Protein backbone atom coordinates (compact mmCIF):
# COMPACT_ATOMS: atom_id res chain seq x y z
CA UNK A 1 0.00 0.00 0.00
CA UNK A 2 1.45 3.30 -1.13
CA UNK A 3 0.69 5.30 2.01
CA UNK A 4 1.33 2.54 4.50
CA UNK A 5 4.20 4.26 6.26
CA UNK A 6 2.39 7.31 7.67
CA UNK A 7 -0.70 5.27 8.39
CA UNK A 8 1.37 2.71 10.27
CA UNK A 9 2.86 5.56 12.27
CA UNK A 10 -0.66 6.74 13.08
CA UNK A 11 -1.59 3.23 14.20
CA UNK A 12 1.44 3.11 16.49
CA UNK A 13 0.36 6.46 17.94
CA UNK A 14 -3.06 5.00 18.71
CA UNK A 15 -1.44 2.05 20.46
CA UNK A 16 0.87 4.30 22.47
CA UNK A 17 -2.18 6.31 23.55
CA UNK A 18 -3.54 3.16 25.16
CA UNK A 19 -6.47 2.71 22.80
CA UNK A 20 -7.91 -0.82 22.87
CA UNK A 21 -11.22 -0.39 21.05
CA UNK A 22 -11.16 0.77 17.44
CA UNK A 23 -14.64 1.36 16.04
CA UNK A 24 -15.17 2.21 12.42
CA UNK A 25 -17.45 2.69 9.51
CA UNK A 26 -15.28 1.49 6.64
CA UNK A 27 -13.45 4.05 4.56
CA UNK A 28 -10.69 3.58 2.01
CA UNK A 29 -8.58 6.23 3.72
CA UNK A 30 -8.72 4.26 6.98
CA UNK A 31 -8.20 0.87 5.36
CA UNK A 32 -4.67 0.39 6.66
CA UNK A 33 -5.65 1.26 10.25
CA UNK A 34 -8.64 -1.05 10.08
CA UNK A 35 -6.50 -3.90 8.76
CA UNK A 36 -3.89 -3.31 11.47
CA UNK A 37 -6.59 -3.35 14.16
CA UNK A 38 -7.99 -6.65 12.95
CA UNK A 39 -4.49 -8.18 12.98
CA UNK A 40 -3.71 -6.90 16.47
CA UNK A 41 -4.71 -9.30 19.28
CA UNK A 42 -4.67 -6.45 21.79
CA UNK A 43 -7.04 -4.24 19.79
CA UNK A 44 -10.76 -4.85 19.47
CA UNK A 45 -11.92 -3.84 15.99
CA UNK A 46 -15.63 -3.02 15.91
CA UNK A 47 -17.45 -2.46 12.64
CA UNK A 48 -20.47 -0.17 13.03
CA UNK A 49 -23.64 0.22 11.02
CA UNK A 50 -23.63 3.99 11.58
CA UNK A 51 -21.15 6.42 13.07
CA UNK A 52 -23.08 7.55 16.16
CA UNK A 53 -22.83 4.02 17.50
CA UNK A 54 -19.13 4.70 17.94
CA UNK A 55 -19.74 7.78 20.08
CA UNK A 56 -21.88 5.78 22.48
CA UNK A 57 -19.41 2.88 22.40
CA UNK A 58 -16.53 5.17 23.33
CA UNK A 59 -18.50 6.49 26.31
CA UNK A 60 -19.19 2.96 27.52
CA UNK A 61 -15.54 2.02 27.06
CA UNK A 62 -14.44 4.93 29.24
CA UNK A 63 -17.00 4.04 31.91
CA UNK A 64 -15.29 0.65 31.98
CA UNK A 65 -11.78 2.09 32.13
CA UNK A 66 -10.85 1.59 28.46
CA UNK A 67 -10.01 3.98 25.63
CA UNK A 68 -11.64 3.92 22.21
CA UNK A 69 -11.22 5.67 18.89
CA UNK A 70 -13.82 6.15 16.15
CA UNK A 71 -12.68 6.11 12.53
CA UNK A 72 -15.06 7.63 10.02
CA UNK A 73 -15.38 9.68 6.88
CA UNK A 74 -16.53 13.31 6.95
CA UNK A 75 -19.93 12.18 5.64
CA UNK A 76 -20.44 10.34 8.95
CA UNK A 77 -20.02 13.39 11.15
CA UNK A 78 -23.57 14.51 10.56
CA UNK A 79 -24.84 11.19 11.87
CA UNK A 80 -23.09 11.83 15.19
CA UNK A 81 -24.40 15.27 16.08
CA UNK A 82 -26.85 14.57 18.88
CA UNK A 83 -24.83 11.64 20.23
CA UNK A 84 -21.90 14.01 20.77
CA UNK A 85 -23.90 15.41 23.68
CA UNK A 86 -23.22 12.14 25.50
CA UNK A 87 -19.45 12.41 26.08
CA UNK A 88 -19.81 16.13 26.67
CA UNK A 89 -22.52 15.75 29.31
CA UNK A 90 -20.86 12.76 30.92
CA UNK A 91 -17.47 14.49 31.00
CA UNK A 92 -15.97 11.57 29.11
CA UNK A 93 -13.21 11.75 26.45
CA UNK A 94 -14.12 11.22 22.83
CA UNK A 95 -11.52 10.75 20.13
CA UNK A 96 -12.10 10.40 16.40
CA UNK A 97 -10.06 10.33 13.19
CA UNK A 98 -11.95 11.64 10.17
CA UNK A 99 -10.92 11.22 6.56
CA UNK A 100 -12.05 14.25 4.59
CA UNK A 101 -14.07 14.16 1.41
CA UNK A 102 -15.37 17.02 -0.66
CA UNK A 103 -12.32 19.26 -0.51
CA UNK A 104 -9.27 18.24 -2.61
CA UNK A 105 -10.08 17.11 -6.15
CA UNK A 106 -13.46 15.68 -5.16
CA UNK A 107 -15.19 13.96 -8.05
CA UNK A 108 -18.49 13.26 -6.31
CA UNK A 109 -20.60 16.37 -5.60
CA UNK A 110 -22.67 14.45 -3.05
CA UNK A 111 -19.64 14.49 -0.74
CA UNK A 112 -19.22 18.25 -0.80
CA UNK A 113 -21.95 19.60 1.53
CA UNK A 114 -21.05 17.45 4.55
CA UNK A 115 -17.33 17.70 3.86
CA UNK A 116 -17.52 21.48 3.80
CA UNK A 117 -19.59 21.61 6.99
CA UNK A 118 -17.57 19.05 8.95
CA UNK A 119 -15.30 21.39 10.97
CA UNK A 120 -18.16 23.76 11.81
CA UNK A 121 -20.50 20.92 12.78
CA UNK A 122 -17.90 19.42 15.09
CA UNK A 123 -17.06 22.76 16.67
CA UNK A 124 -20.74 23.55 17.12
CA UNK A 125 -20.99 20.40 19.25
CA UNK A 126 -17.98 21.26 21.37
CA UNK A 127 -15.44 19.03 19.62
CA UNK A 128 -11.86 20.30 19.37
CA UNK A 129 -10.72 20.04 15.76
CA UNK A 130 -7.14 19.39 14.65
CA UNK A 131 -6.07 18.88 11.06
CA UNK A 132 -3.29 16.96 9.36
CA UNK A 133 -2.32 18.06 5.85
CA UNK A 134 1.01 16.32 5.36
CA UNK A 135 2.13 12.74 5.83
CA UNK A 136 5.03 13.67 8.07
CA UNK A 137 2.80 15.46 10.59
CA UNK A 138 -0.05 12.93 10.76
CA UNK A 139 1.24 10.71 13.57
CA UNK A 140 2.35 13.64 15.74
CA UNK A 141 -1.04 15.29 15.30
CA UNK A 142 -2.83 12.08 16.27
CA UNK A 143 -0.60 11.65 19.29
CA UNK A 144 -1.20 15.22 20.49
CA UNK A 145 -4.94 14.93 19.85
CA UNK A 146 -5.18 11.70 21.83
CA UNK A 147 -3.37 13.31 24.75
CA UNK A 148 -5.76 16.27 24.62
CA UNK A 149 -8.80 13.97 24.59
CA UNK A 150 -7.81 11.50 27.28
CA UNK A 151 -5.73 13.70 29.58
CA UNK A 152 -7.96 16.78 29.44
CA UNK A 153 -11.22 14.81 29.08
CA UNK A 154 -12.64 16.53 26.03
CA UNK A 155 -13.91 15.55 22.59
CA UNK A 156 -11.25 15.78 19.88
CA UNK A 157 -11.33 15.15 16.13
CA UNK A 158 -8.37 14.90 13.78
CA UNK A 159 -9.29 15.71 10.20
CA UNK A 160 -7.05 13.84 7.76
CA UNK A 161 -7.21 16.04 4.71
CA UNK A 162 -8.24 14.72 1.34
CA UNK A 163 -4.95 15.97 -0.05
CA UNK A 164 -3.18 13.70 2.43
CA UNK A 165 -5.44 10.71 1.78
CA UNK A 166 -5.53 11.27 -1.96
CA UNK A 167 -8.74 11.93 -3.87
CA UNK A 168 -10.83 8.92 -4.68
CA UNK A 169 -10.23 7.93 -8.28
CA UNK A 170 -13.28 6.96 -10.31
CA UNK A 171 -12.78 5.12 -13.55
CA UNK A 172 -14.81 6.82 -16.23
Amino acid at each position, binding site marked *: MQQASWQDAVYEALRRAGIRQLAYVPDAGHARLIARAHEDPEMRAIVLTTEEEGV*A*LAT*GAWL*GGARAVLLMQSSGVGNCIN*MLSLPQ*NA*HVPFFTLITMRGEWGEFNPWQVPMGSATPRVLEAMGVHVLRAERAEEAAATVEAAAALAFDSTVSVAVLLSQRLIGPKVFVR
Partner: protein
Amino acid sequence: MTSELDRRAVVAALLKEPGELLVVAGLGTATYDVGAVAERSLNFYLWGAMGGAAMVGLGLALAQPDRRVLVITGDGEMLMGLGALATIAAQRPQNLAIAVLDNASYGETGGQQSHTALGVDLAAVATGCGWTHVCRVREAAELDTLRRRLREEPLFAVIPVSRGEPSRHLPPRDGAFLSSRFRAALGVA
Protein backbone atom coordinates in the same frame (compact mmCIF):
# COMPACT_ATOMS: atom_id res chain seq x y z
CA MET B 1 -52.55 -6.51 24.36
CA THR B 2 -54.14 -6.87 27.76
CA SER B 3 -51.94 -9.07 29.95
CA GLU B 4 -48.98 -6.72 30.15
CA LEU B 5 -46.83 -6.36 33.19
CA ASP B 6 -46.22 -3.28 35.30
CA ARG B 7 -42.87 -1.89 34.17
CA ARG B 8 -41.65 -0.81 37.55
CA ALA B 9 -42.43 -4.21 39.06
CA VAL B 10 -40.52 -5.80 36.17
CA VAL B 11 -37.46 -3.63 36.73
CA ALA B 12 -37.62 -4.25 40.48
CA ALA B 13 -37.62 -7.99 39.80
CA LEU B 14 -34.74 -7.77 37.31
CA LEU B 15 -32.59 -5.63 39.61
CA LYS B 16 -33.26 -7.60 42.79
CA GLU B 17 -29.96 -8.09 44.63
CA PRO B 18 -27.97 -6.43 41.87
CA GLY B 19 -24.60 -7.14 43.42
CA GLU B 20 -21.82 -6.04 41.08
CA LEU B 21 -24.06 -5.89 37.99
CA LEU B 22 -23.21 -2.94 35.70
CA VAL B 23 -26.46 -1.30 34.56
CA VAL B 24 -27.04 1.12 31.69
CA ALA B 25 -30.51 2.68 31.53
CA GLY B 26 -31.93 4.15 28.32
CA LEU B 27 -33.43 7.63 28.34
CA GLY B 28 -36.99 8.23 29.42
CA THR B 29 -39.00 6.00 31.65
CA ALA B 30 -36.38 3.23 31.75
CA THR B 31 -34.02 5.65 33.50
CA TYR B 32 -36.77 6.60 35.98
CA ASP B 33 -37.58 2.92 36.57
CA VAL B 34 -33.99 1.94 37.29
CA GLY B 35 -33.46 4.96 39.52
CA ALA B 36 -36.68 4.29 41.41
CA VAL B 37 -36.02 0.66 42.27
CA ALA B 38 -32.24 0.52 42.73
CA GLU B 39 -30.37 3.86 42.74
CA ARG B 40 -26.69 2.89 43.00
CA SER B 41 -23.22 3.86 41.84
CA LEU B 42 -22.97 1.10 39.24
CA ASN B 43 -25.98 2.45 37.33
CA PHE B 44 -25.37 4.77 34.39
CA TYR B 45 -28.53 6.68 33.45
CA LEU B 46 -28.97 8.19 30.03
CA TRP B 47 -31.04 11.37 29.98
CA GLY B 48 -30.42 11.96 26.29
CA ALA B 49 -28.37 10.33 23.52
CA MET B 50 -31.46 8.46 22.35
CA GLY B 51 -30.53 5.25 20.57
CA GLY B 52 -27.20 4.98 22.39
CA ALA B 53 -27.95 2.78 25.39
CA ALA B 54 -27.09 -0.57 23.80
CA MET B 55 -23.81 0.76 22.40
CA VAL B 56 -22.80 2.25 25.74
CA GLY B 57 -23.40 -1.26 27.04
CA LEU B 58 -21.18 -2.77 24.35
CA GLY B 59 -18.25 -0.44 25.03
CA LEU B 60 -18.56 -1.17 28.72
CA ALA B 61 -18.87 -4.93 28.24
CA LEU B 62 -15.77 -5.05 26.02
CA ALA B 63 -13.83 -2.94 28.54
CA GLN B 64 -14.90 -5.17 31.45
CA PRO B 65 -15.08 -8.71 30.09
CA ASP B 66 -15.19 -10.26 33.56
CA ARG B 67 -18.22 -8.24 34.67
CA ARG B 68 -21.86 -8.58 33.68
CA VAL B 69 -23.51 -5.66 31.89
CA LEU B 70 -27.28 -5.19 31.64
CA VAL B 71 -28.89 -2.56 29.42
CA ILE B 72 -32.48 -1.71 30.37
CA THR B 73 -34.27 0.45 27.85
CA GLY B 74 -37.57 1.10 26.14
CA ASP B 75 -38.89 0.12 22.73
CA GLY B 76 -38.61 3.65 21.32
CA GLU B 77 -35.01 4.04 22.44
CA MET B 78 -34.09 0.62 21.04
CA LEU B 79 -35.84 1.39 17.75
CA MET B 80 -33.71 4.51 17.28
CA GLY B 81 -30.56 2.41 17.50
CA LEU B 82 -31.57 -0.80 15.75
CA GLY B 83 -28.22 -0.99 14.01
CA ALA B 84 -26.62 -1.58 17.39
CA LEU B 85 -28.28 -5.00 17.47
CA ALA B 86 -26.29 -5.91 14.36
CA THR B 87 -23.07 -4.37 15.68
CA ILE B 88 -23.34 -6.15 19.04
CA ALA B 89 -24.25 -9.49 17.50
CA ALA B 90 -21.18 -9.26 15.27
CA GLN B 91 -18.96 -8.78 18.37
CA ARG B 92 -20.63 -11.58 20.35
CA PRO B 93 -19.85 -10.27 23.84
CA GLN B 94 -20.75 -13.00 26.31
CA ASN B 95 -21.23 -10.59 29.22
CA LEU B 96 -23.82 -8.22 27.76
CA ALA B 97 -27.60 -8.58 27.97
CA ILE B 98 -30.39 -6.21 26.91
CA ALA B 99 -33.87 -6.00 28.39
CA VAL B 100 -36.39 -3.95 26.41
CA LEU B 101 -39.47 -2.72 28.27
CA ASP B 102 -41.95 -2.63 25.42
CA ASN B 103 -45.01 -0.48 26.00
CA ALA B 104 -45.46 -0.03 22.26
CA SER B 105 -45.51 3.72 22.67
CA TYR B 106 -43.49 6.87 23.20
CA GLY B 107 -44.44 7.55 26.79
CA GLU B 108 -42.43 10.74 27.25
CA THR B 109 -44.02 12.58 24.36
CA GLY B 110 -47.72 11.88 24.66
CA GLY B 111 -48.01 8.14 24.25
CA GLN B 112 -47.86 8.00 20.47
CA GLN B 113 -47.77 4.49 19.05
CA SER B 114 -44.29 3.11 18.41
CA HIS B 115 -43.38 0.73 15.63
CA THR B 116 -43.85 -2.24 17.96
CA ALA B 117 -47.56 -1.32 18.01
CA LEU B 118 -47.48 -1.34 14.22
CA GLY B 119 -46.04 -4.76 13.57
CA VAL B 120 -42.31 -4.49 14.30
CA ASP B 121 -41.04 -7.43 16.35
CA LEU B 122 -37.86 -6.44 18.19
CA ALA B 123 -37.10 -10.02 19.22
CA ALA B 124 -37.27 -11.10 15.58
CA VAL B 125 -35.01 -8.19 14.62
CA ALA B 126 -32.44 -9.34 17.17
CA THR B 127 -32.67 -12.91 15.91
CA GLY B 128 -32.24 -11.66 12.36
CA CYS B 129 -29.15 -9.74 13.44
CA GLY B 130 -27.58 -12.89 14.79
CA TRP B 131 -28.47 -12.87 18.48
CA THR B 132 -28.72 -16.51 19.50
CA HIS B 133 -30.30 -15.96 22.94
CA VAL B 134 -33.60 -14.14 22.50
CA CYS B 135 -36.77 -14.34 24.53
CA ARG B 136 -40.15 -12.70 25.12
CA VAL B 137 -41.49 -12.66 28.64
CA ARG B 138 -45.18 -12.05 29.32
CA GLU B 139 -45.89 -13.50 32.76
CA ALA B 140 -44.75 -12.31 36.17
CA ALA B 141 -43.92 -15.90 37.02
CA GLU B 142 -41.17 -15.84 34.39
CA LEU B 143 -39.31 -12.91 35.88
CA ASP B 144 -37.16 -14.91 38.30
CA THR B 145 -35.89 -17.01 35.43
CA LEU B 146 -35.40 -13.91 33.30
CA ARG B 147 -33.34 -12.23 36.04
CA ARG B 148 -31.02 -15.24 36.17
CA ARG B 149 -30.70 -15.49 32.40
CA LEU B 150 -29.93 -11.77 32.03
CA ARG B 151 -27.01 -12.26 34.42
CA GLU B 152 -25.67 -15.42 32.80
CA GLU B 153 -26.37 -15.26 29.06
CA PRO B 154 -25.85 -12.84 26.17
CA LEU B 155 -29.62 -12.43 26.14
CA PHE B 156 -31.92 -10.05 24.30
CA ALA B 157 -35.25 -9.97 26.11
CA VAL B 158 -38.45 -8.18 25.21
CA ILE B 159 -40.93 -7.64 28.01
CA PRO B 160 -44.32 -6.20 27.07
CA VAL B 161 -45.35 -3.73 29.76
CA SER B 162 -48.48 -1.69 30.30
CA ARG B 163 -48.70 1.91 29.13
CA GLY B 164 -49.75 3.31 32.47
CA GLU B 165 -47.26 5.93 33.56
CA PRO B 166 -45.58 5.13 36.87
CA SER B 167 -44.73 7.82 39.37
CA ARG B 168 -41.91 9.91 38.03
CA HIS B 169 -38.75 9.26 39.98
CA LEU B 170 -35.79 11.30 38.84
CA PRO B 171 -32.34 9.83 39.48
CA PRO B 172 -29.27 12.08 39.28
CA ARG B 173 -28.93 13.72 35.85
CA ASP B 174 -25.50 15.31 36.14
CA GLY B 175 -23.62 13.15 33.66
CA ALA B 176 -20.20 14.08 35.00
CA PHE B 177 -21.29 13.00 38.48
CA LEU B 178 -22.74 9.76 37.13
CA SER B 179 -19.64 8.82 35.12
CA SER B 180 -17.22 9.72 37.93
CA ARG B 181 -19.26 7.81 40.48
CA PHE B 182 -19.52 4.80 38.19
CA ARG B 183 -15.79 4.69 37.44
CA ALA B 184 -14.88 5.11 41.09
CA ALA B 185 -17.21 2.29 42.10
CA LEU B 186 -15.70 0.12 39.39
CA GLY B 187 -12.18 0.99 40.50
CA VAL B 188 -11.06 2.48 37.19
CA ALA B 189 -11.11 6.17 38.14
